[in-house]
Every structure is written in C-alpha cells, then in structure tokens.
C-alpha cells in the first residue's frame, strides 16, 4: 500500500494514522505537506487525518479544504482513487466538496472524547470489507463538531444509495437517539461519496489497532483497505 497522509498546520493525529498504516500495511506512508500541488506517484490511498487544522478558525476544516494539495486530491478522487478522512479529515472533505453535507456543533454543545460503538452497515466496500455487515465495533471519538447534517434530499440519497457505512449505536448494535452521541442526522458516523471511493468518518479507527490501546476493532478498516488494494493490483 502506498498511502499518503496530508499534513496541515494544526493537524495532530497524523502520526497516529501513520503508525496504524505502517503496522497494518507493512509499508511506510508518505507525509504530504498542504502546500504541495501533487501527490507522490503511485499513491493508492490518501488519508486526511484528524486534528484541528488552522485552529478550526472560520469553520472547522474550511481553510484546509482550500489548500493547494486539495486540488490534487480532487483530481485523484475524480480518477477513482481512495480517500479516507477521519474526524477533522471528514470536516475537510465536506468543506472541500468531496463529500456532501457539513459537520455542525455537537447537539449538546460538549466536546466528546470517549469510546463509542459503531454499526458497520455493509461489508462490500473498500472501507468496510474487513468487517461483517451489522458488526459492532468500538472506537474512540474526540470532537466538538461531529453532528452530521445535510438537506433532506441529500440524506434521502445517502440512505437510498447505501452510502452510510458507519452509524453510532449501542454495544448491542441498536441505533437510537440515546446512542447518537452528537445529534447527527440518522446517527451518521461515516459516509461515502456517490462513487464510493471517498469515506469520511468522525471516529478514530487508527486509535484502536494495538492491544496496548485496549482494543483492536479499528484494524478491520485498514486491513480491508490493504486487501482491497492487493486484489485490485
């Protein structure tokens, strides 16, 4: 796997992401500075990591979404390249127009930093093939603005086209308002674009990949991507 991790000022989860990718794919990801105008040749996964790019100034992800490297990411995605955005990365992908909708302030206004359960809605995508459909995984979240919202038409399309891949749920996999941590529409934790090659999600799978972290439920996402790329090669 030739992964490229984008680095913006204020991003702070890029090394967690690099560690997870190194561990699971066995190859070293490239760190790509936001001012670059191209991606390394042969990149087969672009990762937009979490953190607080530009201190969340203006709107979270807004300034990073307009960085020079994002034009290269847009071209890459248009050619079908895989893009994974986590947390601030999800916000950046929404702001850049690569994903629909927007991440609003959490409904209860608090910054949420703890483990959550996610239901994997389907297993036939590059981003979920490491799991079974309906499987419940435990991964951490750390965000103040993760409340996914979009207009009714967009939500209807996302649901109709099976583009919601991860949803907040109970440990038993029940999706209800009590487990919808941030008030997101339809308990959405992660969605893909219409072509299915760009995923944005608020939770941090990269932080549950080693035994020392207390849980390895996040591994499946990366292992699935590695499998997908090996199969495609």
């Amino acid at each position, binding site marked *: 796997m030739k992964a490229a991790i984008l680095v913006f000022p204020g991003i702070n989860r890029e090394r967690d992401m690099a560690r997870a990718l190194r561990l699971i794919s066995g190859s070293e990801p490239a760190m790509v500075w936001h001012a670059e105008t191209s991606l390394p040749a042969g990149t087969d996964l672009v990762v937009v990591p979490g953190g607080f790019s530009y201190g969340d100034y*203006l*709107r979270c992800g*807004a*300034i990073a979404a*307009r960085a020079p490297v994002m034009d290269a990411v847009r071209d890459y995605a248009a050619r079908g390249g895989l893009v994974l955005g986590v947390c601030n990365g999800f916000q950046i992908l929404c*702001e850049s127009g690569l994903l*629909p*909708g*927007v991440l*609003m*302030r*959490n*409904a*209860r*206004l608090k910054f949420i930093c703890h483990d959550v359960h996610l239901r994997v809605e389907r297993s036939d995508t590059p981003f979920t093939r490491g799991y079974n459909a309906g499987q419940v995984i435990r991964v951490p979240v750390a965000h103040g603005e993760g*409340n996914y*919202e*979009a*207009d009714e038409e967009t939500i209807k399309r996302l649901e109709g086209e099976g583009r919601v891949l991860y949803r907040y749920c109970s440990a038993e996999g029940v999706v209800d308002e009590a487990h919808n941590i941030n*008030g997101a529409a339809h308990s959405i934790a992660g969605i893909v674009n219409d072509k299915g090659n760009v995923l944005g999600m608020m939770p941090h799978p990269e932080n549950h990949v080693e035994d020392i972290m207390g849980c390895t439920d996040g591994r499946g996402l990366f292992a699935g991507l590695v499998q997908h790329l090996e199969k495609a090669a």
Partner: protein
Amino acid sequence: MKARVTVTLKTGILDPQGKAIEGALKSLGVDGVASVRQGKVFDIELAGGDKTKAEAVLKEAADKLLANTVIENYRVEIV
C-alpha cells in the same frame, strides 16, 4: 473602501450555539427574547475604489471561503 460581509445560518438549520445563548439570556433575566441565531461578521478593507468590482470581489470571497453555502447565507455591504 470598507465593506462588511454578514454570514448567517439558513432557516431550518439547527443552531446549538444560538440556543445556548438564548438560554443564557433567559437565565440572566433578559426578558422578551424569543430566539437567537448566531452568525459572523467580516469587516473587509478593499484596495481600489470601484464599487462594482468591489462587490464582485466580496461575492467571490464569500462563495469561495467566508460562507459554507450548504448551511449559510451571506450579505455583502459596502460601508
């Protein structure tokens, strides 16, 4: 030339911050507030004195960066 761009949330978009401010005003005993919506104001100094050009620049600035038109409206004023 001085200008002001005002960015506000579209109707129907939930505004948890506005709601919190509304609640705080009520608990402060400020009566008669029915609801609060929070927005942003950008005061911008423009080079040159062409008003039509300035309006076009401000519109471009708002569309490209200052507002997320998925959830926000904006208003441009030359002041």
